[in-house]
């Protein structure tokens, strides 16, 4: 029944990978964005403070006694020292002629006098940020341009950036780990209902075709609806065929009973051997089909009841003695004794008494049928407290070796059953009943002497 399932990926894995991938992407994105932002912010703040420094120097530039006086305020540079330990360079020009500071500083960004200009350059092998501003002064009546450039290395910027990067990286990793954790949880919980559904369906007995009634998430509703509809169709189809079998058997059996009885009466009145033989054949044929119908019904019944297994406490001893009593007249007909051995105390198991009775009757019927006349069939009930067993041993030919596995399949009859009426469903029924109760049917040949032995084993109800 269970065909190989073709798998393609795993929803859980896919979810986790997607969530993790998303989280990683977000974390990286966050890192990059924050770092860029921080870089801009840090660069901006450096530019601002350099601008402030330039402005304060420019403000201090004045014309005194007809000449340029440049009293650089202490704060112009000390403010730079407040922010970082970066090295500071500056230069002041007057009409592009060097006045004071670092003469070899790279030329500033060109631009209009009125605007503050920024430039990133390399000076003495390190990267510096230069801010330049200019101011027009009238010195001795001549308009002149005083231009101030203040530059700073970017160690502080880099350090700040590294610190931010480290912090953001930690945040990113933390975020990723948290997201990963939540992602796995989310995947688990998303898969949960699917697992539950799969679990509840696979835990069911093979014949349990009730619809799934547990509440499922909206997304799974179509799947469950389809499953339910499939199961109900399957169930309908099963029920239909069961009904059909029951109906057919019913319809067939009553006329068969009539015909058989008439045939028996006829046989009494007929003397010619060839006619007698013909009537005998007829009776056997009737028996065969009648028995087949009966067992088909039995089987349909077993299938049906397995589906709605009623579990009550059932005593194996009681079942066995009932079955023996029921079939003793049949055994008597063939001068077969049935020997029943019961343990001292009841062997209670939880199950469907009717099914179990049916299984026992089928096995016992088989044993009687396949035993020679004037022999004994032994029925032994035993139990060890956890498992109970009914063993039915005949003294017939036993089961053909090599067929032990296949005998429980439908309509498979042993190779050494010729001359006995049978449909091949008896063992199937017993086997299905055993499995519906979580037990097993074991077929073997007696080790000593001859005869087959069929054992039904069940777990007993714990007291």
């Amino acid at each position, binding site marked *: 029944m269970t065909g190989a399932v073709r798998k393609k990926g795993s929803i859980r894995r896919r979810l986790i990978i997607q969530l993790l991938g998303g989280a990683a992407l977000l974390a990286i994105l966050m890192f990059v964005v924050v770092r860029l932002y921080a870089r801009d912010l840090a660069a901006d703040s450096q530019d601002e403070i350099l601008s402030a420094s330039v402005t304060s120097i420019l403000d201090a530039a004045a014309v005194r006694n007809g000449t340029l006086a440049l009293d650089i305020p202490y704060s112009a540079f000390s403010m730079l020292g407040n922010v970082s330990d*970066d090295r500071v360079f500056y230069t002041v020009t007057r009409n592009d002629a060097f006045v004071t500071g670092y003469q070899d500083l790279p030329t500033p960004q060109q631009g209009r006098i009125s605007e503050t200009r920024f430039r990133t350059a390399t000076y003495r092998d390190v990267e510096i940020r230069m801010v330049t501003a200019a101011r027009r002064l009238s010195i001795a009546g001549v308009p002149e341009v005083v231009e101030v450039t203040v530059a700073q290395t970017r160690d502080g910027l880099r350090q700040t950036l590294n610190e931010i990067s480290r912090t953001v990286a930690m945040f990113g990793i933390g975020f990723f780990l948290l997201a990963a954790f939540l992602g796995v949880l989310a995947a688990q919980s998303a898969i949960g209902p699917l697992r539950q559904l799969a679990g509840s369906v696979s835990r069911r007995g093979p014949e349990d075709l009730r619809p799934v009634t547990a509440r499922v998430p909206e997304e799974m509703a179509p799947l469950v609806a389809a499953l339910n509809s499939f199961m109900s169709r399957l169930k309908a189809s099963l029920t239909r065929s069961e009904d059909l079998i029951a109906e057919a058997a019913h319809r067939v059996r009553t006329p068969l009973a009539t015909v058989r009885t008439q045939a028996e009466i006829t046989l009494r009145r007929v003397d010619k051997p060839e006619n007698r033989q013909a009537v005998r054949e007829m009776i056997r044929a009737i028996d065969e089909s009648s028995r087949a119908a009966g067992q088909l019904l039995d089987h349909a019944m077993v299938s049906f009841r397995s589906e709605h297994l009623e579990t009550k406490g059932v005593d194996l001893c009681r079942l066995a003695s009932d079955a023996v009593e029921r079939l003793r007249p049949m055994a008597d007909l063939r001068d077969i004794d049935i020997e029943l051995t019961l343990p001292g105390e009841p062997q209670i198991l939880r199950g469907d008494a009717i099914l179990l009775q049916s299984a026992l009757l089928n096995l016992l019927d088989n044993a009687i049928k396949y035993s020679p006349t004037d022999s004994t069939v032994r029925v032994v009930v035993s139990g060890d407290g956890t498992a109970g067993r009914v063993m039915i041993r005949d003294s017939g030919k036993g089961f053909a070796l090599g067929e032990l596995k296949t005998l429980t399949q439908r309509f498979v009859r042993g190779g050494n059953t010729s001359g006995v009426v049978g449909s091949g469903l008896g063992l199937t029924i017993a086997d299905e009943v055993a499995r519906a109760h979580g037990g097993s049917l074991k077929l073997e040949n007696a080790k000593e002497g001859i005869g087959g032995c069929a054992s039904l084993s069940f777990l007993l109800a714990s007291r």
Partner: protein
Amino acid sequence: MRKFVLLAGLALMWLAAQATAYEIEDRRSFGPDGASRTLRIISTGDASLFEPILTSFLQSEPNLRIDYVVASSTQLSRAIHEDGAVMDVALSSAMDLQTKLVNDGYALPHRSNATSSLPTWARWRDHLFAFTQEPAAIVLNRAAFDGLPMPRTRQDLIALMRANPDRFEGRVGTYDVRQSGLGYLFATQDARSSETYWRLTEVMGGLGVKLYCCSGLMIDDVVTGDLAVAYNVLGSYAQARPEETQIEVLLPEDFTTVMLRTAFIPASSELPDIAGRFIDHLVTRQWDNAPGLSQVFEGAELTRDDQALRRIRLGPGLLVFLDGFKKQAFFEEWRSAVLQ
């Protein structure tokens, strides 16, 4: 002793002048003659002042000689900056020049447990490390103040000098800021701290202030009584002479400028590792037998009144006073205050 040092210094100066463009004041060697390596230290501090530090360092560094060169802060700056002299450690009290040398890229970085345990005001950029803090003191001759209350602040001193011009006329001394880098540093920092500086300078100018190149000479003159007041004298030098009982070292209570003696490893260093260890030695407490040098960590009497202490801050602010224009402007103002 001092005369001998001076003579030896002069002799060495002549020798050094043969090889170098910068001028040195003294040159001493410490450690075994046969040592394979020589740590070159250029310093503005007297060898005698640093000797305990150097010898204690040599104890942990066998097989090392120290070549100790004394130069003025300006010459030190020139040696490093212009002459590219091969030096392993530069020690100087001229914080502004030290800062500029580091700022302009003439120093190597150094990081160690010792340096990272320094307070943040005592280091800059992992290049420049303060290892002493030395106040700018006012040294007074007790006899000259006989009958007068000992001043405690600049205001007291101004008041006393104004009230007793006869007693102080020609007996007041201070650095010639045009000659002395340290004097200039103290002056600019004082000027930055308070307007009182200019009033004091004007008062001293009115009393015919004598101008000096160095703290030592000023103290000498206070000891002899030639000077009644020496303003902005390196406190460490005065305290290094406890035998002189006739002088009073005053750390003004309105504010006391505190200079940090700093060290860095010049970029030209050939032994940066040993130089680094030497700086660690400087900044840790391994030489507390050097009288007069207050370590960064203890600062003895410098903890007296934190409000009044004005430590000169390391950093780019110091570059301002090295600017030619600024300097010129300051000299202008100073001269007009002093030379009336």
